[in-house]
């Protein structure tokens, strides 16, 4: 086996090795119940990472996701009383529109996606701060339970948030592997010029990819908001870097075209294991961002396809 052939399995190997390693230090980590609670805990992050996968799969990136999620927590909290469960639709629509706007700016105004989404992120942040009046808002507990209690129930030991994550993963996987849209995403990610010469509407595909990442960010935000029973312009902070790390560590490189949503599942699990390992190893909470920053750099350096990037700026 050559190194290149092994590369696709790296994320799996890493995951198993990490689980065993942490398990060796702390056998209780390997118990089913602790694992389930650990996994259920990171569902919003996983959903955000799923959305990020679409942006990175086409060779772009979406830096607005965290702010979109922030905005959505505020929107959900503010309008819950008025619209009940339908506030979810408003949130999803907001995410879709912000993502589509980033896509439009990228494809039609030729602003690279990292700038376009960064800028849209700040616009969303402003919206969140304005709407919340820069305060931490809390949800009306009755209205929340009436509309969204189903999100965090538990049926036969299976937490509902895990079911939601599973459904979204299946949906994203189906979209990626079984639909013309998914095939087009792959073509754009691995050979955009060939996709254009085959008559694909590349701009529309890219706009939709960013719209999808915005949508997933909104769903993640909604779950946060319900879980923490409130909204705040900073609620989802810290999750952007984790989502990017999850996608890249999972094996979807920044250059796009390979990897996908299953990889992101593995990547997210790796992130979770590392995070809980840091707790077990009593690494100071203030160090976490630094550790993930370093992992991000290493992950990109290891996975990037240099033949596709002649110039790095």
């Amino acid at each position, binding site marked *: 086996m050559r190194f290149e052939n092994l590369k696709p399995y790296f994320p799996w190997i890493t995951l198993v090795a990490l689980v065993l390693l942490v398990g060796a230090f702390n056998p209780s980590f390997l118990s089913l119940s602790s694992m389930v609670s650990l996994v259920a805990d990171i569902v919003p992050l996983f959903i955000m990472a799923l959305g990020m996968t679409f942006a990175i799969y086409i060779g772009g990136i979406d830096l607005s996701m965290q702010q979109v999620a922030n905005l959505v927590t505020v929107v959900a909290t503010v309008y819950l009383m008025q619209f009940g469960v339908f506030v979810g639709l408003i949130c999803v629509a907001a995410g879709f529109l912000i993502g589509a706007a980033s896509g439009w700016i990228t494809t039609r105004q030729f602003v690279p996606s990292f700038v376009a989404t960064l800028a849209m992120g700040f616009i969303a942040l402003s919206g969140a701060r304005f709407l919340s009046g820069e305060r931490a808002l809390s949800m009306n507990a009755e209205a929340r339970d009436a509309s969204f209690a189903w999100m965090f129930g538990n049926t036969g030991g299976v937490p509902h948030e895990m079911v939601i994550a599973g459904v979204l993963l299946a949906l994203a996987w189906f979209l990626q592997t*079984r*639909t*013309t*849209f998914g*095939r*087009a995403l*792959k*073509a754009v*990610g*691995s*050979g955009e*010029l*060939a*996709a*254009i*010469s*085959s*008559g*694909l*509407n590349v701009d529309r595909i890219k706009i939709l990819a960013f719209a999808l990442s915005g949508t997933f960010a909104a769903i993640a935000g909604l779950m946060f908001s319900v879980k923490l029973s409130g909204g705040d312009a900073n609620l989802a902070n810290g999750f952007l870097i984790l989502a990017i790390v999850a996608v890249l560590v999972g094996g979807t490189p920044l250059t796009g*075209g*390979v990897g996908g949503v299953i990889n992101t599942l593995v990547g997210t699990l790796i992130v979770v294991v590392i995070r809980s390992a840091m707790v077990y190893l009593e690494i100071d909470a203030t160090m976490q961002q630094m550790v993930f920053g370093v992992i991000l750099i290493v992950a990109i350096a290891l996975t990037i396809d240099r033949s596709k990037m002649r110039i790095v700026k």
Partner: protein
Amino acid sequence: MYQLKKVDKKFPGVHALKAVDFTIGRGEIVGLVGENGAGKSTLMKVIYGAYQPDGGTVTIDGKTVRFQNPRQAMEHGIGMVFQEQSLITNLTVMENVFLGFEQQFVRFGVIDWKAMAAAARHQLQKVKLDIDPAMTTAKLSFAQRQLVELAKVLTLEERIDGDLVILLDEPTSVLAKEEVELLFSLVRELTSRASFIFVSHRIDEVLELSDRIYVMKDGEVVDVVDHDAAEVDAIQRKMVGRDVDKEYYREQKQKPFDPSSALVRFDAVSVAGNYQNISFDLHPGEVLCLVGTEGSGREAILRTIFGLEKPSSGSVIVKGSPYSKATARAAVERGVGYVPRERKIEGIVNGMNVYENMTLSQMANYASNGVLKIAEEKALARQWIERLSIKTPDVYKDCGGLSGGNQQKVVLAKWRSGGSDVILLDHPTRGLDIGAKEDVYDMVREMSDAGAGIVLVADTLEEAIGLSHTIIVLKDGVFQKRFDGSPGDKPSLFDLVHHMI
């Protein structure tokens, strides 16, 4: 003084240089000719240090040298004047001339611009260019930039001991006639300072300028002729290496086309900056070949048919109506298929497998409500793998890992299986070996038998003549002449070359 002995260079699947011997003496001008893919560029890259040879030796004045990069070659007096100009257009002329060698003008950590300007003026004098060295390069004409490039290379004279060897890569391809003559007289004068290697596809120019001419074919030097003994005819025959065989281009399979209807109709079409006032009809079953040098507008015409270029005047009718909005998508929907020159970048998607590539342009035919019918895709791929004898282990093989010829077959299968009947071929045989070329020629004949109209920009003139029913010769974007090429009554190379240049 500068010598290559038995130099070999291999790339995956291609033996680009086969034991090449090459010598150049002090003050000599050596010509280098060959068809596309004969190994000229590879040889040049070995000479100026961009490639390292796999075998053989490079010696300067008897001493063996090995260059890891162009900079090391420059330090040994070897400079390159690039065809695609290497000047950075937003810098001034002097900054370009001394790019990478500014240290000599640095005083107390800052550049002494006056000293640099004076030095640049001295260099520009060598090429008789009287311009302000502080001018922005973008403001110069193309010919002037070429001279600045030459001046840049001539700075080596002051910088190194020993002799200079300067490579000129197609220096005349975009110059007007008078400019070419000026350049030539300049080069002759400069032989007192340097030796020159002159690479061009214009054989007459090479003959005029060079003391000695190396003729390359398939990675080998097949002949070395002296200026006095050189004849265009003989050199051309050596370049091709054979009298062109009629069967090679499947001429016996060429059938008359149906002139009563037109698939594509160009009526006085211009694209500003590319070509002007071009008219032709493409009929079912016709192979129409656009002939001209690089930049003559042939590729732009293909791009116009494919909707990638908007005509600035005139009308383009594809299958009965003009494009309402010119995009590649609109063209594909009308049954136009494009086989681009950059096969690995625009032709196939590197990273997608055989069936994914074949259905990429026609996914709607293999999906219902956006959900792909992958089994049908695979069946299609198997059918075309069989039909075109594509060499691939299975339909799951990444197309990036196929050989060039098989990649090309996948691209052709993509268009033909989708029912495209206007096929645009841009250098379809570039970089293919002979067997793969013949496969492509067979496919061209099959497609025109099936009633497809083909617009071809060929890799070589022989290919253009051999394959086409109709030849349109272009020069600088202007129509020159139209030839009919029914089998047995084909125009000759010289008929074409005469109108191209």
